[in-house]
C-alpha cells in the first residue's frame, strides 16, 4: 500500500505536467465515449420515433429518403401522391388503418403537417407510447392547430394564440389571410413531433385553395368563404399504414410497389432505418477510428511525459534502490504511475462526457431534433474505458523498462 501512496504523492507533486496529461487523456476519453453515446443515442432516438406503424407509403423515391421526410421531417418530398391512389391503396384487404400526412408548409422554421384526427391515435413512439396533450384539445375547427412541445416553448405559444402559416419551407409569402388558432399543445415526446405544427388535412387544402403555380391567385378566397367549399384533398405527401396481421406486410408492400396507376413506394420503417444505419455506419466507423486515434495520441503523450521526466528522477530511483527495492519494483512503480494517470484520465473523461451531454442536450435537441438520452454507461462503454486504462498501462511499460535499465545501471549512486 505504501507504494501506491507514494505513487499518488509523486504524481501530485508533479501536478502540472501530470494534470495536463490526465486532461489530455480525459478529453480523448470523453470524445471516444461521446462518439459512442451520440451514435447509440441517435440510433435509439431514431428507433424510438416511430413504432407500431407497419408501412409508410409515398411517391417513388429512396426508401431512406421517404422515411426521413415523412417521419423525421428531414429533407423534402420530391413528389406527392394523389388522393385517388391513396384511397385505392388503403382499400386493399389487410389494411387495418391509414393516416395520410401532407407536408410542405412551415411556421417560423417549424414544419406544418396536415393530417387527420386519427394521427393522434395511430402515431406511437418509444415502444407504443401515445401522444398526449399537455394543454387544450385536438383540432375541432378548420383553422385549429395542435403544436408540439418545442414549438410552444420556443415561440412562447399558449392556447388561443394565432398562428400564420408560411407557404413553403423558407419563404416570405404567408397564408396570412387564413390565420390558425392554437387549440392544443402536445406533451414532450423527444421526437420530431415536438417540432411540428399539426393542422387538419382540410386546412392544408383550404389555405391553398386559391393558390396556383406557387402564388396566390388574383381572386383570393376569404377564410369564411373557404369553409363552405369542398375541401377534399387532391394529393398528400405520404401515409402511415397499419396492417391487420404482420404476415400481410410484405404482400401489401409488394402490391403498393407494383401499383400501376401511379409510381408509389411502401417501406417498412424498421427496414428503412436499417438501411440508413448501413449508410451512416461508414461514417460511424470513421468517427470511431478517429476518436480511438485521439485516445492513442493522448496515451503516447503520457508515455513521452514519463520518459522526459526519467532523468530528473534518477535520484528518486537511487533512493528506492538504496532501501532495498529491486529494479523490478521501479518498473512496477512506473507502470503503476501510468495506470493511475490513465485511470484518472478515464474517470475525468466520464465526468466530462456527462457534463458535456447535459450541457449539449438542449442544443442538440433544438438544432437536430435529436433527443440524446443521458443513460448509464453500457457494457460496451465500460469496455472502452477498460481499454483506455489497459492501453495506458501498456504504454507505461516503455518508459518503465527504460527506468528499469537506468536503476539497474545506477544502483544507489547516479552514474553519468
Amino acid at each position: 500500500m505504501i507504494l501506491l501512496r507514494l505513487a499518488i504523492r509523486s504524481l501530485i507533486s508533479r501536478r502540472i505536467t501530470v494534470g495536463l496529461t490526465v486532461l489530455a487523456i480525459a478529453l480523448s476519453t470523453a470524445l471516444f465515449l461521446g462518439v459512442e453515446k451520440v451514435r447509440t443515442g441517435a440510433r435509439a432516438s431514431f428507433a424510438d420515433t416511430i413504432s407500431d406503424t407497419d408501412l409508410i407509403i409515398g411517391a417513388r423515391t429512396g426508401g431512406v429518403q421517404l422515411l426521413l421526410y415523412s417521419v423525421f421531417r428531414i429533407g423534402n418530398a420530391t413528389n406527392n401522391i394523389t388522393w385517388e391512389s391513396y384511397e385505392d391503396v388503403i382499400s386493399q384487404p389487410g389494411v387495418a388503418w391509414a393516416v395520410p400526412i401532407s407536408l410542405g408548409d412551415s411556421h417560423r422554421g417549424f414544419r406544418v403537417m396536415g393530417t387527420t384526427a386519427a394521427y393522434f391515435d395511430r402515431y406511437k413512439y418509444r415502444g407504443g407510447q401515445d401522444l398526449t396533450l399537455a394543454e387544450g384539445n385536438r383540432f375541432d375547427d378548420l383553422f385549429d392547430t395542435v403544436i408540439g412541445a418545442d414549438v410552444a416553448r420556443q415561440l412562447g405559444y399558449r392556447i388561443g394564440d394565432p398562428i400564420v402559416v408560411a407557404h413553403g419551407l423558407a419563404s416570405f409569402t404567408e397564408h396570412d389571410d387564413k390565420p390558425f388558432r392554437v387549440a392544443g399543445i402536445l406533451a414532450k415526446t423527444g421526437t420530431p413531433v415536438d417540432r411540428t405544427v399539426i393542422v387538419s388535412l382540410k386546412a392544408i387544402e383550404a389555405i391553398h385553395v386559391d393558390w396556383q403555380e406557387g402564388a396566390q391567385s388574383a381572386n383570393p378566397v376569404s377564410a369564411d368563404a373557404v369553409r363552405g367549399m369542398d375541401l377534399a384533398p387532391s394529393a398528400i405527401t405520404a401515409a402511415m399504414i397499419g396492417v391487420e396481421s404482420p404476415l400481410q406486410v410484405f404482400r401489401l408492400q409488394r402490391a403498393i410497389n407494383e401499383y400501376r396507376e401511379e409510381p408509389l413506394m411502401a417501406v417498412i420503417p424498421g427496414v428503412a432505418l436499417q438501411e440508413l444505419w448501413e449508410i451512416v455506419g461508414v461514417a460511424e466507423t470513421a468517427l470511431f477510428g478517429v476518436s480511438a486515434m485521439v485516445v492513442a495520441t493522448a496515451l503516447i503523450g503520457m508515455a513521452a511525459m514519463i520518459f522526459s521526466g526519467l532523468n530528473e528522477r534518477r535520484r528518486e530511483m537511487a533512493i528506492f534502490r538504496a532501501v532495498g527495492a529491486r529494479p523490478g519494483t521501479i518498473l512496477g512503480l512506473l507502470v503503476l504511475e501510468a495506470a493511475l494517470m490513465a485511470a484518472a484520465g478515464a474517470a475525468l473523461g466520464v465526468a466530462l462526457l456527462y457534463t458535456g451531454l447535459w450541457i449539449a442536450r438542449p442544443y442538440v435537441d433544438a438544432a437536430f431534433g435529436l433527443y440524446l438520452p443521458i443513460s448509464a454507461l453500457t457494457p460496451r462503454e465500460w469496455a472502452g474505458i477498460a481499454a483506455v486504462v489497459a492501453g495506458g498501462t501498456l504504454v507505461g511499460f516503455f518508459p518503465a523498462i527504460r527506468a528499469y535499465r537506468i536503476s539497474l545501471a545506477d544502483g544507489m549512486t547516479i552514474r553519468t
Partner: protein
Amino acid sequence: MTDPSRPTTADAIAISNLRFAWGGRRRFGLAVDTFSVRRGETVFLFGESGSGKSTLLSLVCGVNKPASGQVEVDGTDLGALRGAARDRFRAERIGVIFQMFNLLPYASPLDNILLPLHFAPERRQRCGDPRAAALDLTDTLGLSRSLIEHAPAADLSVGQQQRVAVARALIGHPPLIIADEPTSALDAGAQSAFLDLLFERVQAFGATLVLVSHDARLATRFDREVSLSDIARTHREDAA
C-alpha cells in the same frame, strides 16, 4: 539467510581478493585484497572523491556483484546471491545514509522512514508497530511529530532531512549502517550534533557503522580509521 539476532563469530564485513570493473564507457576498476569490519565496530573510511568509495559501497550493499573474490556481510557471501536476493539482503540488513537528497521529496518523512520495511518483512516484524517505532526514533532524533507525519520531506531543512535519513537507516535495527558523506551538506555546528545523534543511536542499537568521508577531521570519534587508498587499488582507462 541467517537470523540476524543470532550471535555469530562472523565479521560485519569481510572482503577478500575482491576484483570489480564497471562495464560500459567508464572503465573503472577496483581491487581490494583484504578488508574487514568487526561487529559493533565504528569505522571511518577516508577517501577522496574518485578513490572508488562509491564502488566499494555498492559492492558492500550488494547493488553490484564482484567479478571475483568475496564480499561477505554478516557471514553471507553477496556474490553467491542472485540480484533480487541481494536487494532483499540489503533491505533486511543494511541502513544507508547518503550525503544529501536522501528522501523522496514528495512523500512525508514518516513514509520515507517506513519505506525500507516494505522491502524487508523481517525488519518490519522486528519493529512491532512500525509507525510507533518510527516516531520513537524521530523523537530521540529531536524531530517534531507534526513535521514527520504531515509535511512533505522537501519542506524540511537539510539538517532535518539528514536526521530523517538516520531514522530510516536505523528502523527495524539493521545490523550494518553505511553512511556516505552524511555530514558534508551540513555546517560545522550541525555536523557535530548530527554525529552525536548518529553515534548515540548506532551504539544504542549495537549496530556496526561504516562512515565514508573525505573530511579527516571527523575520524577522531571512531574506533578505527582506514584510508581507502591503503586497502584498495583503482585503475581507470578511458574508452575514447
